[in-house]
């Protein structure tokens, strides 16, 4: 078995679909139909991943997200029908590991779960030793030596570009919000200046992508942020 997954979802139809997909892929799902149940099961079931619907009948999904992050610390995937970028950004900034908008494809859901679980377990290991190399397709990022290569050729990036790509590669497959990136590269003073990040990203794309209109490695989540492609997405 690959792991325990807590599904917090009030709609029976979607809960059933999710749990049958997960069972078919060797996960152990449990469904909580409201926030109260979810909080109880969090303690008793000890999930490895939480799939969280933000629109719950008894409480705001963000409260559960906060609770999970405070006590349990396992990865949380937001599954929401709310097609509002601001909600997504808010959830991500509060610590959600990823979000997926209804309706979604099965493979997409499974890939996101895999990435979230892997990033989480690696995160625990990483605190011990920080050596890491990111590899995806022909792109290779050596986080220790600060070297980026594409097709075994070294790519020259500016200092900030390198910091951005390294930050993204520390969380492959995970979307990092604009604010998160700006805060970590330029500091909180620059939060208003979204443009500097966007231009830097455009420049990175020109150096790493064959076709900036169909990027393979740097994926834009419009209105939310950026993610670096993960091997399992390709």
């Amino acid at each position, binding site marked *: 078995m690959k792991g325990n997954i807590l599904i917090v979802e009030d709609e029976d139809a979607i809960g059933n679909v999710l749990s049958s997909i997960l069972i078919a892929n060797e996960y152990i799902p449990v469904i909580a139909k409201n926030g109260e149940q979810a909080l109880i099961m969090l303690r008793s079931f000890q999930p490895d991943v939480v799939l969280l619907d933000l629109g719950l009948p008894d409480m705001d999904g963000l409260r559960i997200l906060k609770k999970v992050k405070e006590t349990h610390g396992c990865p949380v995937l937001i599954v929401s029908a709310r097609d509002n970028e601001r909600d997504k950004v808010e959830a991500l900034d509060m610590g959600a590991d990823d979000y997926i908008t209804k309706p979604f494809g099965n493979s997409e859901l499974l890939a996101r779960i895999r990435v979230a679980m892997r990033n989480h377990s690696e995160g625990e290991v990483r605190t011990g030793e920080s050596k890491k190399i990111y590899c995806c397709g022909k792109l290779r990022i050596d986080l220790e030596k600060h070297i980026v290569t594409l097709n075994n050729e070294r790519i020259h990036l500016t200092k900030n570009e390198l910091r951005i790509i390294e930050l993204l590669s520390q969380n492959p497959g995970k979307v990092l919000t604009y604010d998160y990136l700006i805060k970590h590269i330029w500091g909180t003073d620059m939060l208003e200046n979204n443009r500097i990040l*966007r231009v830097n990203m455009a420049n990175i794309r020109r150096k790493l992508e064959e076709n*900036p*209109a169909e*990027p393979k490695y740097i994926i834009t*989540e*419009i209105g939310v942020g950026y993610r670096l492609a993960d091997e399992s997405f390709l």
Partner: protein
Amino acid sequence: MGPESSLTKRQKFFHHFFTALGLFLMATITNYFIIAMYHKTINVSGIYLLAVILTSLLTGSYFWGMLSALGGVVGTNFCFTYPYFAIDFSLSGYPLTFFIMALVAIGTCALTVNMRKQRDAAHRREKMANILNEMDQRLLQIDEKKQIVALLLEYLHIQLALPVLYFEIKGDKICCMGHLGNAQEELTDNQYDILCRSLKEQKIIDVGMTEDNPSGFLSIPVIRQNRVFGAACILLQKENLSTEMRGYAQGLVNHFAIAFERQELSEAQQQILMEKQAEQMRSYLLRAISHDLRTPLTGILGASGAILNNGETMPAELARRLMLDIHEEAQWLLRMIENVLSVTKIGNYNPELKKTMEPVEEVIADSIARCKKYFSDLKVEVHMPDDVIMLPMDPILIRQVVTNLIDNAYRHGNSQEKIELDVSVCEQYVEISVQDYGKGLPTEKLERLFSGIHNHQQQGGDAGRGLGLGMSICKTIVEAHKGKIFAETVSGKGLRVAFQLPLEED
């Protein structure tokens, strides 16, 4: 008095002096000639009288007129009566001559001054009429309230040479809409009270300058048919406004009242038009949804029903095909719903778009990625400038436009061929176009492509399905961004749909 006006005064003095002196000398010389030719002195005082009249006429000054009269009497006495070249006051009748001449001088001067006054007044009236005319011309060309206020302030300031302010009533507040000249936006409490009173009582209040109140203040409400639009305030400096200038300022303000009224009417009209359009869009959407969404739902219900009822007996191949149909129809439904959702972001619900600066390439990349999820064999060839283009837009909505255009090009063009997506930057806008290699559309259909009507009438057939809805939503989104969208058939290729978005935020 400044040095400039004293100079003109001195010039005027010399001008008058030389006029009077010149006329006096000319009269004296003429007298000499007449006496030399006819040896009669009968015309002497007549000639001098003529000089007095002319002097009074030309100078319009009592002083020079009287002086000229005196000169005439002295000249007659001194030059042309015995004893020559000596003043003899013993001659009888001279005081009388002087008196008559002085009377003529006074009378002529009075007439001249009056005439001049009338002439000047006529001049001023004509000038004002010209200014008002020019102002009306300019007023006709503007239709924004801000511009009207700016023009009002400009005219008042130029004509009165005083600091002016304009205030408007907004709800229960009075806001300063603009100021010109050396005026601050803040009024003193006293001035504010006067302004409020003049707005409330709908009349001009003029607090002139006095010894104890050196800051004179004039508030002229802008009224049209009992509707108060606001008030123009004039800060007096040094001296009070003449009655004439006050009347003039009021006339000017009244002219602007008409402009404000016209602007309000046209705004209301615009609002009605917009509401009508939004209403049309809504009713169109409802019709389109009921038609376009019912078709795939029928397919889904039929296919899933067939599998449920005959699942066991049905060949696996057929069951799989039915499930594929369900999957495809559901995906199509989803895309349509995304379209409909995007429209709720515009229109009455949200008149102001929330625009951010976005790199065009990211929006395009995301649109292509989305389309590829549905159409795995989609081929899009993108041409765009190397420079990063940042555009103010709502990225989710523009992504919807690009997705719809690619979707449309894929389904209605020749899906085996590639689709070309071009981005070009012009001076004031960025053009994004999608070119397919299909059959294109005849001109009459091109015109109606974005109105969403024609596909409705031609019921059935997958070719028309959803096209109208998607395209009219594109138009709604692009126009909400103050852009343009258009389509053309390119010979040798196919249909080309392009939209332009302004580079600058207005």
